């Protein structure tokens, strides 16, 4: 799976960056409007870093690309992206080969990292509300013997539902919480970014499932 991480990250760059304005507009409504730039600059740095990461252990690929993102575009999203990737990478550190069976573990470690760093809970209207259901869904599908493609589809569907659910939530943490009631009605920008990223990952998986 050492090709998978670079492949997915490139897919994210290609498919999410063109939608940066969507993220900017959401973040303008309940935050400071920089999330489009953050994702653009961060993913550009990730793609630049990938050259040196081809063939490296998955653990390093994850953690180093996360660090590259935050170095170029530090921000709430940047540091959370970096934390998730570093913790996810640490979860498979030293493993000779990493496969579909490790995805849920990587995801859970990443999620725990996000919660340690951001001290937010599910339901606070953050990217946790997009990521947590995705991991659960992947895990369940995988345990039920579904294929990687099927588990990925399930994860993205759960992510999309979780992201949509943030619309009705009132933000309890960070910048969006300053808007108070006015945060209700706007889909959380960070959750939306996670959703767009997982959708890009899904498209990569669909095209490359045979090789993984």
């Amino acid at each position, binding site marked *: 799976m050492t090709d998978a991480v670079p492949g997915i990250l490139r897919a994210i760059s290609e498919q999410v960056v063109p939608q940066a304005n969507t993220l*900017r507009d959401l*973040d*303008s409504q*309940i*935050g*400071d*409007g*920089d999330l*489009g*730039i*953050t994702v*653009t*600059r961060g993913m550009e740095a990730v793609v630049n870093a990938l050259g040196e990461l081809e063939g490296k252990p998955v653990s390093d690929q994850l953690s180093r690309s996360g*660090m590259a993102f*935050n*170095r*170029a*575009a*530090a*921000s*709430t*999203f*940047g*540091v*959370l992206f*970096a*934390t998730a990737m570093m913790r996810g990478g640490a979860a498979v550190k030293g493993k000779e080969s990493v496969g579909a069976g490790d995805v849920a573990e990587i995801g859970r470690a990443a999620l725990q990292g996000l919660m340690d*760093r*951001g001290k937010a809970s599910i339901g606070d209207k953050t990217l946790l509300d997009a990521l947590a259901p995705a991991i659960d869904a992947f895990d369940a599908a995988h345990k039920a013997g579904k294929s990687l493609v099927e588990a990925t589809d399930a994860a993205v569907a759960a992510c999309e539902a979780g992201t949509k659910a943030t619309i009705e939530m009132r933000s309890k*943490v*960070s*910048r969006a*919480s*300053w*808007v108070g009631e*006015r945060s209700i009605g706007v889909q959380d920008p960070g959750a939306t970014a996670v959703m767009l990223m997982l959708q890009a990952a899904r498209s990569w998986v669909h095209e490359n499932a045979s090789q993984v």
Partner: protein
Amino acid sequence: MPMRKIINDPSLVEDQTVDGILAAFPGHLKRIDATRRGLIRGDAPIKGKVAIATGGGSGHLPLFLGYVGPGLATGCSVGNVFSSPSSDDMLDVTKAIDGGEGVLYLYGNYSGDTMNFDMASEMAEVDGITVKTTLGRDDVTSAPKAEIKRRRGVAGIFFGFKIAGAAAEAGRDLDAVHAAAEAAVFNTRSMGVALSGTTIPAAGEPGFQVAAGQMEMGMGIHGEPGVEVGPLLTADQIAGQMLDRILPDLPFSSGDTAAVLVNSLGATAPEELYILYNKASQILRDRGISVHRAYIGEYATSMEMSGASISICKLDDDMAKLLDAPAYSPFLLQQVGGR
């Protein structure tokens, strides 16, 4: 709508700003690493003294980099416009300024900053550097008083730099410098009003707008929505509304001594700040609060945003002494002589 900005490539705004500052005041600051965004006092590290690290998004000059200098902060990490600097740069700054007495982190309460600084402090502790943290959270409109820990820091963090910086310069230990910073932050209250939005250069379009003739009370320095949008009031009304919210919050009481800062968010002219101060000083006099010192000008801007904020810091004798101590930065209007 095209931007009214004198820049080159929008993605180079932050680096070229830092380059310009370094070129303008040779020796005042130095870069730790030519390719990155950690800057420290030209004479750092200063052995035997507590160091102060700050940092935050670009676009707020003189905040944050302008508050590095003798009697102020020791080092700064510079983020992209309105975005946190990276924990990498923060760690580098921490290591570069540590004079063996520990490092105080002093910055605004924004999640990108707190998460990156937290990450940096965890790494610094691994390197054996003791770090303590104080967060600016002076903006009264950003959360109710019961949730004061959620409040964001705005221009009033200046009092933290000035007071904690003087404490560090005086040779106080980390606990005492931290205590001075906490005293400054916890005794400061601010409120702002925005008359226009601002455009992040790399975004190219205004993230926020305030229609001409309108104002947004409590808007944050990145354009975070405030408490109320309404027709533009007079200067006296604005000063009155701000103090009505600021004074009861601490509260400030008759007999108190305070420092006052009237800050332009960028486009608002000095003349308007003095008109605001004129009313604010009358209100304070009427409430029996005596003004120890007034700071009026650009202290925390949001690029070309139109608007202003008032910050008030309640002083005890020690804080007043620290506030009066000399300090130097090319961005600061306070004399070496403390005038």
